[in-house]
């Protein structure tokens, strides 16, 4: 995709340090990275590389120690908790590894939850399009407990898409799924970019998941060490093998 358009999200010399003094852990050690609009990016790296922390900071779930994080033109480091919450609600979509849904609400109620919380009108036509595309039409009245893991993640995807956010973040969205369900969810995210012109950023440790992306960003020891365009599962796996096989002690997440 055209890399000259304004980025949907970017970080500037982003640092995140846990603890102080001798025990300080540099989870992010000056990360400068851009995520182009209408592109599917996967963030990869060994355990403790800081990939999750990077995503949390980008998504306004965690605060940076120093540096800047932008969603569009908005600098997240200047926002209050209330503004940050509003930004997450109106401009960001989320798909987590697990515990995506409110167990007491139906699938449909979960999908429209961020809109309902915001008091925004639901775009029926768009909702129908998303629900149909994701094959959830006959599951809308079910509660999460009555859905399979793959179906739950599809509902989570539908929720992320329903508000037409500027960017969708996925934190190991296929981490808990079997390979068939993983494929479904990744196809949906791929389609969100291709068909709905969405911007998607996911964190994953699965080379096959990364192969669905347009671009893979590799992190190690809190720094961006490499990136890859048009990845294949094999190429990603090869790249990952070059990281030290001796996994460092996992940083606090």
């Amino acid at each position: 995709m055209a890399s000259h358009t304004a980025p949907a999200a970017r970080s500037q010399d982003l640092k995140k340090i846990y603890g102080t003094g001798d025990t300080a852990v540099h989870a992010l050690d000056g990360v400068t990275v851009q995520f182009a609009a209408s592109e599917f990016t996967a963030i990869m790296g060994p355990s403790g590389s800081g990939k999750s922390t990077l995503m949390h900071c980008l998504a306004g779930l965690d605060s940076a120690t120093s540096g800047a994080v932008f969603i569009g033109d908005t600098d997240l480091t200047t926002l209050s908790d209330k503004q940050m919450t509003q930004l997450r609600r109106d401009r960001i979509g989320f798909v987590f590894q697990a515990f995506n849904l409110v167990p007491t609400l139906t699938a449909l109620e979960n999908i429209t939850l961020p809109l309902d919380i915001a008091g925004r009108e639901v775009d029926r036509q768009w909702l129908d399009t998303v629900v149909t595309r994701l094959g959830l039409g006959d599951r809308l009245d079910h509660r999460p407990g009555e859905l399979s893991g793959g179906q739950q993640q599809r509902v989570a995807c539908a929720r992320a898409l329903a508000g037409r956010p500027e960017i969708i973040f996925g934190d190991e969205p296929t981490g808990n799924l079997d390979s068939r369900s993983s494929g479904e969810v990744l196809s949906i995210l791929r389609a969100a970019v291709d068909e709905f012109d969405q911007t998607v950023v996911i964190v994953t440790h699965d080379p096959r998941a990364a192969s669905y992306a347009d671009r893979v960003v590799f992190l190690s020891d809190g720094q961006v060490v490499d990136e890859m365009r048009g990845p294949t599962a094999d190429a990603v796996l090869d790249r990952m093998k070059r990281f030290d096989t001796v996994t460092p002690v996992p940083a606090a997440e």
Partner: protein
Amino acid sequence: MSGNPIRKVALRNLAAHKVRLALTVLSVVLGTAFITGSFVFTDTLQRTFDDIFGDVAQGVDVRVSAEELGASGVPVSDIATVEGLDGVARTAPLISGSLVVLGSDGAAVQTGGAPVEGLAWLPPDRTLGDPQVFVDGGPPVADGQIALNTSGAERGDLHVGDRTQVLTMAQGMVPVTVSGIYDVDSDTGGYIGVLFTETQASALFTDGRHVQSIDVAGDGSMSPEALRDEIAAALPGTKVQTGAEVTEEVKSQVSEALSFLNYFLLAFGAIALLVGTFIIYNTFSMIVAQRMRELALLRAIGASRRQVGRSVTLEALVVGLIGSVLGIAAGIALAYGLRAALNAADLGLPSGPLQLSPRTVIVALIVGVVVTVVSAYAPARRAMHVPPVAAMREESTGGDASLRVRTLAGVVAGVAGAVLVAIGAQGTGGGAAATVGVGALALIVAVLFAAPALSRPVVRVLGAVFARPFGAVGKLARTNATRNPRRTAATAFALTLGLMLVSVIGVFGASAKTSVDALVDNGVESEFVLTGPPMLGLPSAVVDAARGVDGVAEVVSAHTVVAKVGDDEDFQFGTAITGRLQDAVALDIVEGTESTTGDELLVSQSVAAERGLHPGAVVPLTSRDGETVDTAVTGVYADNQLIGPWITSPELYEQFTPVGSRSAMVVLVGTEAGADADAVRAGLEDATKQFVIVQVMDRDEFKGQQAQQIDMLLAILYGLLALAVVIAILGIVNTLALSVVERRREIGMLRAVGMQRAQVRRTIYIESLLIAVFGAVVGLVLGLVFGWAFVRTLADQGLDHIAVPWGQVLGMLVGSGVVGVLAALWPGIRAARTPPLEAIVDV
């Protein structure tokens, strides 16, 4: 400790969750505090009264008194008889009676319910015990002089040499001068003692032919028992007791009176504990659910079911012990506060050092610990039956077993209870009330069983009303309130119980007030009602004073006559009327005439039916002095709550009532046609001003005064029930706080997808409001039904009008909503602090 890993896990667990521990302990503390408080309070009163009455018969070997309490006493001639007997050294007559003392401001000295007692002063050589010690002045030596105890002097701001008046029923106002002030050991709680000369006391309080009792001191030649038997043989028809027996009797009377108070307070302790039990049970259920994975881990690495169960039980034991010990301390504080409050309210109770008996500590400890362990054991048992692998899986929600059996049991109990209540409400009297009581108990059990199933539809309806305006937040709150019906029901049950009792009492109060109003409206024809202090009444001189007022047509006074009817065992309260009855009271004569003069008797229809009486029949009446008069029935009247079972003549009243006890219960004043009510009232007030204690009221004011008395009685009950409600609130706080911990990840997720902190808080508030209102609605419905049924069984006791205090009901509903929101404040704030990352990061 290191030798026992299970114990270590249990104790570490307690230490690791301090808030949870604090909340659990608190629920135990509240239950045990009330038990301790009621024991300590009544023990203290008991001990204080024992001290006061311990020397009631000091120096007395034998006391001679009348057989019946309230009789004229012992004939004066008996004194000489006793003194003539062998072994008698000295005798001292006791002359005493009730009166009112006016203070330096001319108003009656208030004692807060404690008695004012007039006594004859006896010189030291004639007293048997220690003579009075005068701190100022000296004893009364001439008629018209009085000596006061220090408390009475202080309360009336009276000093030696001051002139004032005392009011007695027999002689009206008597001018007196204070000759001295003396000390009484138990000079607390408002008791006022007034010493007169012997001649004046006997003129004021006796008919001159009797004394209340004769105290006898032996010369040492005979044992008190032998002396007692000798005197008893010489004076048949009197009650002769040794000093020790007198003391014993007084003490047992006191302890009987106090045991009622003790049962009453313990009943509230039981309610508090029952409510507390639910909180403890709820708390442990949730804790065990939260620890499912941890318990499963213990099981997976080889701990046996018993070991895991023991771990939970040990935790409960520690919580129960800590809670009970703190509860005992809190109970002592409660008793202290209660005493201070009662002293401040000037209820005329004496005060002494607080009594903490070993029995109190043991009962509170056992109850606290046992209730806690039993409440914790049930959920622990359930937890142990979950297979370890299932519990360790990510999203184990705990046992959500079917409610069917429970609900079915509830429905069965409910139907049985409803039938019993309905049957009981058809009748009157103790049997009917007992039927209603059993039915009520069954209905409470039914609610206990069926509440989880009931909560879903009820909360859904409430949610449609209260949560709808809040949109998505409201919907989340509503679904949260119904997601675990058992928990919702158990949390709400505490409030249900509290509000049920409050509304039962509310129905009683409202019905009593309405019934009294109706009684006054339908029964009293007079425009004005004159009353005096309760228990004392009005001196007869008031009647003459009222009669002299311009515009007054008829003055009727009502007196209470105590007599046995026919060959009854027990004394009954009848009425005697001076003046023309039909002018004052609407009395419906169904047979004969309403004339009662001399030895004549009117009986109510139910008495007539019961005994087969008709005009012309002869019925013997027996006074407390043992005097029997054959009365002729002249008429039968329709049952009348105002009048009572029978009416006799003023002459018979005087014949049957000792001089010192004669007074008018109430004086009814009718005005002449066309008389100006305000002018008559002013005239009545003016004419009765000299008696200080007389209240002039029109009918509405009289009704208001009765209502006020009912309200005061209810206020004490409400105050005690407030405690049950407070515990219920803490239960809600507890449940919500633990729910919030349980839902951390979910709340984090909601925060991540854009729920504002304020919205998170609001969700918790609304959830709490729904639970609280659910509990309140169930409690109010039960309470109103029970109140209605109980009042129906009391229709023959004068509660013939049933009223529902709708304003109060509405107030309680609104109040419970407010309480719900208040209870959610802290859990709500905690929930709102949940960081969004909580949803993603595995804890």
